[in-house]
């Protein structure tokens, strides 16, 4: 720094003023360290960019899954402009350049053959990747009313994402209802009521729960928990949104606990001492003084728990039963957004419609968690400055 602006004496590190002597190595190191520290920002940006990139054609309605297309006779190949021909055959620039005339001719003949084999179904002509079919119900051939259907592997691919969103929401709501009371109770107990000795044992214990890999939680709920819960509540399908929700709850308890506990502990001791001095009991202090003061933090904990639950993959993939049925019942087998991506992406064709739509729901997932993280971050920041007395 000193070498660049010698005129001004800059306020240095921890209040120590820098000398005027130029230190190019120091300067370079500082710039380098600063550059590397931007990597987190770059990564968030790249994640958004590259997940969205694969989904762009669907986002802008450039995909067409229609099985019935206007056929151009192979003989007319010379008449149409190359750009149009390229689009008609669905080729990339490089592929198009590398192909000679005869290959193109063959491809056009293949198109004609394919058109002949198009299924005799009124839905075959639909572009099921357009927004209308992604979000709204449609009366498919053979159904007696409009329905939301996710069925990417069938002759006419149906990509309605509403059943997946509902599936994710169901499991998440159950998870929050199960885990928030438990985690919050534990956070209040550990931060306000427990003796230091108990605290020293309980905190690492709950930290240990967060150390269990989600695939192990998924395995446990699939093998043990699902049967146990079914025995308890006697419902039809063993794997369903309820089971998945409870299992998810186990996964997010440590998240909600640690953030809520942090917020509760960060309430200044003076608050507690004042309340106790006024004659309040410990629980009154905890419930009426500490909890209200830390409420934004508790709220942030719940939002983060929500974000984590929506994004959790392996637990839901293994415990939810994975049937993409549109249903609001908690005891039906369901499929979440994350589980759909995990289960189907490996079998898709690179750049195909199914592939792009899976990336599209990935973007959706990213957006939801980004917003919930951002909100939680904001709330926590406000809370910190309020508790530190800076309004």
């Amino acid at each position, binding site marked *: 720094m000193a070498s660049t602006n010698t005129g001004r004496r800059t306020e240095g590190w921890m209040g120590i003023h820098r000398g005027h002597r130029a230190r190019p190595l120091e300067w370079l190191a500082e710039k380098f360290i600063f550059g590397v520290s931007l990597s987190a920002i770059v990564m968030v940006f790249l994640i958004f960019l590259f997940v969205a990139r694969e989904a762009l054609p669907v986002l802008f309605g450039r995909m067409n899954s229609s099985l019935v297309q206007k056929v151009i006779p192979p003989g007319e190949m010379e008449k149409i402009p190359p750009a149009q021909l390229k689009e008609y055959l669905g080729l990339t620039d490089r592929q198009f350049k590398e192909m000679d005339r005869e290959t193109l001719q063959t491809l056009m003949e293949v198109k004609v053959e394919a058109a002949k084999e198009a299924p005799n179904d009124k839905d075959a002509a639909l572009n099921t990747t357009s927004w209308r079919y992604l979000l709204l119900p449609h009366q498919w051939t053979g159904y007696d009313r409009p329905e939301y259907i996710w069925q990417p592997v069938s002759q006419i691919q149906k990509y309605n994402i509403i059943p997946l969103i509902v599936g994710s929401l169901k499991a998440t709501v159950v998870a929050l209802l199960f885990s928030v009371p438990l*985690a919050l109770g534990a956070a209040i107990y550990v931060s306000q009521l427990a003796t230091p000795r108990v605290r020293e044992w309980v905190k690492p214990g709950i930290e240990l729960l967060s150390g269990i890999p*989600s695939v192990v939680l998924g395995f446990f709920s699939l093998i043990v928990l699902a049967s146990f819960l079914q025995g308890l509540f006697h419902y039809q399908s063993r794997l369903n949104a309820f089971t998945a929700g409870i299992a998810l709850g186990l996964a997010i308890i440590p998240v909600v606990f640690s953030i809520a506990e942090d917020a509760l502990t960060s309430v200044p001791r003076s608050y507690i001492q004042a309340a106790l001095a006024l004659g309040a009991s410990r629980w009154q202090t905890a419930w009426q003084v500490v909890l209200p003061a830390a409420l934004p933090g508790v709220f942030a904990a719940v939002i983060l728990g929500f974000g984590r639950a929506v994004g959790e993959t392996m637990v839901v993939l293994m415990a939810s039963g994975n049937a993409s049925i549109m249903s609001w019942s908690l005891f039906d087998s369901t499929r979440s957004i994350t589980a759909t991506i995990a289960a189907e992406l490996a079998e898709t064709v690179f750049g195909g419609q199914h592939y792009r739509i899976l990336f599209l729901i990935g973007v959706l997932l990213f957006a939801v968690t980004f917003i919930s993280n951002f909100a939680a971050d904001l709330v926590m920041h406000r809370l910190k400055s309020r508790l530190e007395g800076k309004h």
Partner: protein
Amino acid sequence: LNQPAARQSRRRFQSAGFDLASFLFTGLTGAATFLILAILAVILGNILIHGWAGLSWRFVTSGTEKDMFDVNKAGVLPMVFGTAARVILMTIFVLPVGVITAVYLTEYARMNSPITRVIRGAVNNLAGVPSIVFGLFGLGFFINFLGRNLDGILHAGAANPVWGRPAILWASLTLAVMTLPLVIVATEEALRAIPPGLREASLALGATKLETILKIVLPQALPGILTGGILAVSRAAGEVAPILFTGAAYYMAGLPKSVTDQFMDLGYHVFILSTQSPNIEQTRPILYATVVVLLVLTFALNIVAILVRANMRKKMRAGH
């Protein structure tokens, strides 16, 4: 005649220190705490009791045949190798970047400047991105963008892609991005635990800022930095979602030979065994045993990290 007596007895009850509301409140929150710990105990107990039977020296040290569901032939060595390899590679990628970022945030950045807040916001957000989205990112960026372009430059005209396909390298890079926030936060904590007086003394003796950081601050913070690394490793070791499309293989005949090979993975193997098995009752022993191996790997690391961190916090408290 009776009423005042009752009132009096109640008063005596209260003055003796019994408060029903307090009792209930403490009981409820305590019960919540206990329930969580009990669930944890049940999960671990169940896994250990059932898993113990399937564990054997042969199971841990042998590979698996084509039929990985056969109780008498299955082994987990290739999976342990694959998991260890991807985690070690990941550590090599993530530690330098994470530590340097933390050094910037604690030693150079001004507390509330906009850029610092943006970096912190990005770190927090990165920590909250769902693991499956990291998988999509790994596929979209590392494999389909970096890999394919590398192939276009280095191996133009080759029939099979070398870089543009799932590989251990891409899986580790994806995991490195995922664990970056963990390392940053842990290192930051370690750096903040070092008393400012140490830095001031070093500066007062004429050391430059860079020298102070390299020779005083970082060596002092080493245990904390290692904790961050260990936490990242144990978190990454159990993750499956990010590697589903970026490198994990369902089955491989041998061990991966280079960073561009696919690999078998412990966590993914747990998933395969519990969902793809033709007869779940028969494969149950190896399934449980595989879970035990995975848990031992992640927990051994976790416990080390928790101990080191507890020790560090104690020191920090003593230093203030």
